[in-house]
């Protein structure tokens, strides 16, 4: 019987001809990732293993992105553990303030994660790299430590669920963010628990890499082990310019088996808003319009990429952020920041009255750089709107795409972008 792209990647890395869902395999890893929050814990576990050296200093990525630039003394100490370890182990892919970006924007951009790779990361949004046709999933610190030592991890082969988007025409302003929020709204936050979500159809093939990365990023918000998209010309064009090593393209067989198949008509999907306090609480923007907002957050590993900033600049150009709104913009990486600067978008944002920051996870996890007070409400392009995610337990987070966030920044309340853009 045929195999899905996920099954093929897992089989190849386990040295097996075939794998079936439910089977437990031991497989070789192409990359092990950790950040400044999970890395220090994994490094402590690593120390218990009685191993001196990591399995391969070129197959480990350490990214100091959550509480950097060092937020306070405690986070400075955490980051130092990461820095010292990276130096002592000769870790090739280590990024720190000045070069660092948000890990799930940075690793694809730097060509460190590639089609066909098997990747674990001590961060739940490691599933993002499925957009390149890699099998990539989040793990705990114990798994990460063992992975750094051995270059291997065990996996339970997941069942796959196929999500087909028929039609390459979308409603105006609809992006990958709306498609994934729509799916989560339909199947719920555990609708794909333990499964691989495979996104396909001409709707997906018409999406840019930035939009595909956004979709796979939020697979975990449906409980999935990973989100994955078969590589095509768009993928290859993206990776050829960046690849730091060899890669391999896997595709699902026509007779591969899926636990479930969902079909959607691309043209029918409206702009989405996820209401507090779960990403599955989705409504259309029109149903949410008029809700007052205190803070807008644009960025994160979900929507901090160049195309996201482009649409924001397009909407903010020549206008002013509403006087009662704080609009924070976080480019995902230094390269994205620089490119946006060169194209004049950063100037547009600052002139509109937005605060533009160096890349960091910052407000996405309520870490620093924009915490909400009691009773405040944010509209954000990030991926989670759990209780207290951005600050006080009695604050609220609504999720949306960058166009809706920018338009709402101008109005001070949730609006459809057509309200602020002519011909929108």
């Amino acid at each position, binding site marked *: 019987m045929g195999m899905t792209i996920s099954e093929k990647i897992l089989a190849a890395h386990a040295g097996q001809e075939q794998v079936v869902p439910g089977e437990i395999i031991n497989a070789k890893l192409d990359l092990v990732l950790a950040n400044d929050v999970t890395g220090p814990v994994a490094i402590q576990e690593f120390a218990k293993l009685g191993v001196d050296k990591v399995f391969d200093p070129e197959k480990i990525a350490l990214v100091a992105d959550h509480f950097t630039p060092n937020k306070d003394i405690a986070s400075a100490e955490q980051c130092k553990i990461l820095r010292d370890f990276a130096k002592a182990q000769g870790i090739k892919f280590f990024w720190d303030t000045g070069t660092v970006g948000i890990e799930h924007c940075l690793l694809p951009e730097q060509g460190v994660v590639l089609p066909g790779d098997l990747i674990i990361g001590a961060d739940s949004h490691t599933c993002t790299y499925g957009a390149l046709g890699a099998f990539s999933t989040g793990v705990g610190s*114990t798994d990460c430590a063992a992975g750094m030592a*051995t270059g291997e991890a065990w996996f339970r082969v997941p069942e796959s669920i196929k999500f087909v988007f028929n039609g390459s025409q979308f409603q105006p302003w609809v992006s990958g963010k709306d498609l994934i929020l729509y799916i989560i709204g339909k199947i719920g936050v555990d609708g794909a*628990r333990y499964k691989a979500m495979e996104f396909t159809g001409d709707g997906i093939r018409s999406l840019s890499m930035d939009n595909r990365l956004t979709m796979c990023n939020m697979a975990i918000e449906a409980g999935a082990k990973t989100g994955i998209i078969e590589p095509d010309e768009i993928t290859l064009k993206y990776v050829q310019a960046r690849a730091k090593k060899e890669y391999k393209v896997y595709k699902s067989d026509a007779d591969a088996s899926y636990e479930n198949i969902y079909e959607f008509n691309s043209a029918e999907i409206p702009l989405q808003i996820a209401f507090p306090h779960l990403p599955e609480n989705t409504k259309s923007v029109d149903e949410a319009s008029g809700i007052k907002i205190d803070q807008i957050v644009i960025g994160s590993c979900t929507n901090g990429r160049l195309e996201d900033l482009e649409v924001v600049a397009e909407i903010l150009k020549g206008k002013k952020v509403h006087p009662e709104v704080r609009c924070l913009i976080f480019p995902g990486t230094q390269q994205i920041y620089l490119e946006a600067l060169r194209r004049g978008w950063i100037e547009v944002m600052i002139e509109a009255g937005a605060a533009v920051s160096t890349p960091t996870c910052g407000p996405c996890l309520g870490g620093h750089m924009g915490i909400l007070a009691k009773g405040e409400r944010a509209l954000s392009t990030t991926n989670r709107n759990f209780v207290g995610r951005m600050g006080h337990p009695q604050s609220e987070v609504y999720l949306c795409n960058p166009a809706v966030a920018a338009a709402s920044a101008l109005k001070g309340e949730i609006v459809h972008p057509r309200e602020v853009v002519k011909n929108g």
Partner: protein
Amino acid sequence: MGKAWKFGHDVDTDVIIPARYLNRSEPEHLAAHCMEDADASFAQNVREGDIIVAGKNFGCGSSREHAPLAIKAAKVKAVIAESYGRIFFRNALNIGMPILECPEAVAGIDAGDEVDVDLQSGIISNLTKGTTYQARPFPPFMQELIKVGGLIPYVKEKNKNA
């Protein structure tokens, strides 16, 4: 061989070990409060070798490794469920707590039945009713991992022999 303790669907990590007890992590402390919010008598009456039998999505919720640790510390031999929360599944095996997926066995075992599990073959025997069920057996490396007590000792062991 041990007695079956039966639970329903969606037993979450807060039921397995309530968050109010997470200020300490010694095994005895966790064992003393294991399953407390589902069955307050469990911790007193569970005996070494007993088996937990549960429905769908056992261990859903938070990523706390304390949940499988509490069950392991209560000396439960194995958990048999229809399915597991993803992170609980990984965490359980990584700390060397055997867990099996077998909906047929869950349907065929009642609370209090005498049950045995052979981890090598994946065969589950209900001695009270005289029935057997086949769960997917663990591959050899996973059996070894469970035997030595989890992922960290397993890797340590492997490195010593390498």
